[in-house]
């Protein structure tokens, strides 16, 4: 229990330190430039403390429960014994890694659904659109995008194809979709790319990428281990634009 308290106070201090520059900027501008007292200072301070304590508890819990297990699983799923290949082999068919794709997709889906910053943006979008955009459906759409993106990203690592080509192809799809998508959703869709990869997703996905790149024959973890986050930030844009497009087709006019 004492140990736990020590570790927790360390996490709390770390979170506090990360928040400090933000608090300093807000308070500084509020006092020096805006020169108006903050409305409901007590409530705001309370809320801020809630945020800091919340993030600290969240990180602490992830480190206790999820990260060790997730990293262990990423390792176990990519070992040559599990894939059932000869560890001396120089070339392996990408088909042998089917469990890795399944794991990558489900991990991407599930971690994105729990991502706090995505929840925040989804709440805001639902409020602003007066309920036309449903927070939970938006999160599901984003999660599907991340799931697909990460599965494709693991495929890229396994086959060793160029990251550049996938990203360019993704951009082209986004541009084409932008032309047809309801104008109301475009900003939100572009934003959803950046918000998905945060506290929960980044550590787990990075671990998966590095494990894969170090076990697949012919891959270099330093060169091929990166790029999964880029996939996880690109495909949600495509998913949200498709979601809006489908919603528009289904009940014409409600989103535009």
């Amino acid at each position, binding site marked *: 229990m004492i140990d736990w308290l020590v570790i927790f106070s360390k996490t709390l201090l770390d979170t506090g330190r990360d928040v400090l520059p933000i608090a300093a900027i807000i308070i500084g501008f509020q006092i020096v430039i805006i020169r108006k007292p903050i409305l409901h200072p007590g409530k705001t301070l309370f809320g801020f403390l*809630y945020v800091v304590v919340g993030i600290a*508890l969240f990180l602490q819990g992830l480190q206790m429960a999820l990260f060790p297990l997730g990293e262990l699983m990423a390792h176990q799923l990519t070992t040559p014994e599990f894939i059932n290949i000869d560890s001396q082999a120089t070339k392996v068919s990408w088909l042998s890694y089917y469990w890795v794709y399944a794991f990558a997709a489900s991990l991407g889906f599930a971690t994105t659904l729990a991502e706090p910053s995505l929840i925040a943006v989804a709440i805001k979008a639902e409020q602003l659109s007066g309920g036309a955009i449903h927070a939970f459906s938006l999160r599901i759409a984003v999660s599907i995008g991340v799931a697909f993106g990460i599965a494709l990203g693991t495929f890229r690592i396994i086959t060793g194809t160029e990251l550049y080509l996938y990203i360019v192809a993704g951009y082209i799809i986004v541009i084409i979709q932008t032309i047809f998508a309801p104008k109301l959703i475009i900003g939100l869709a*572009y934003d959803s790319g950046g918000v998905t990869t945060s506290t929960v997703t980044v550590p787990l996905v990075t671990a998966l990428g590095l494990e894969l790149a170090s076990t697949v024959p012919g891959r270099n973890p330093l060169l091929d281990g990166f790029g999964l986050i880029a996939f996880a*930030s690109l495909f949600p844009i495509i998913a949200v634009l498709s979601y809006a497009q489908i919603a528009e087709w289904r009940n014409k006019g409600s989103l535009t």
Partner: protein
Amino acid sequence: MTFLKNRFIKQIFESFIDLVPIFTVILFFQIFVIEQPLPDIINLITGTLLVILGLTFFIIGLELSLFPIGESMAYAFAQKGSLFWLLAFAFCLGFGTTIAEPALIAVTNEAAEIASLGNIINDSDAAKSNYAFGLRITVAFSVGIAIVIGVLRILHGWPLHYLIISGYAIVVVITPFAPDEIIGIAYDSGGVTTSTITVPLVTALGVGLATAIKGRNPMTDGFGLIAFASLTPMIFVMAYGIIL
């Protein structure tokens, strides 16, 4: 107080629902695919409870503080009408929240390691920490610039997609010139810069500005700041790799 209590109970339940999928995935793969027993059940359960509690506190705190602060500051700046200070605030918010981001620190250290293996820099600790620090400043600077561009866009009502598509075009054009070692990191750096505290604040700032300024629609004009913040680091990190 009863309001907060009810809100709390409701939110705990929602947080629980949000976390069900992760645990389903982990349990399924652990038991049916890897066929191994779960290590350390006690830590798993305590950790899960902490995650649920943490998410609950975060969401409640978000609605009490981060959203209202971001929006009220946006209104105040819009009323004051000082473009310079608004842009200064936007830059500081982007730069200040990114420079201390733990995920970014981890990624830049990794990048320095790769650069030394690729003989771009010397294999000494000093050279590596220099390189990593330079990269961190670059990314933080690029996020600051991104928020400034995003705020200017909201003020002038420029269509978001033209700017983003031009950004994509720059990424595509400069990638062939960037050293191979840095491309993966550059592409990933766009995703890791936006943290859990930055996102709600920046979103509230954008939405607040778009609400306060006549002729802007919070839905079409308010979003988009995060999109810039995930795009500019890719360009700046590759430029950093080309110049060094």
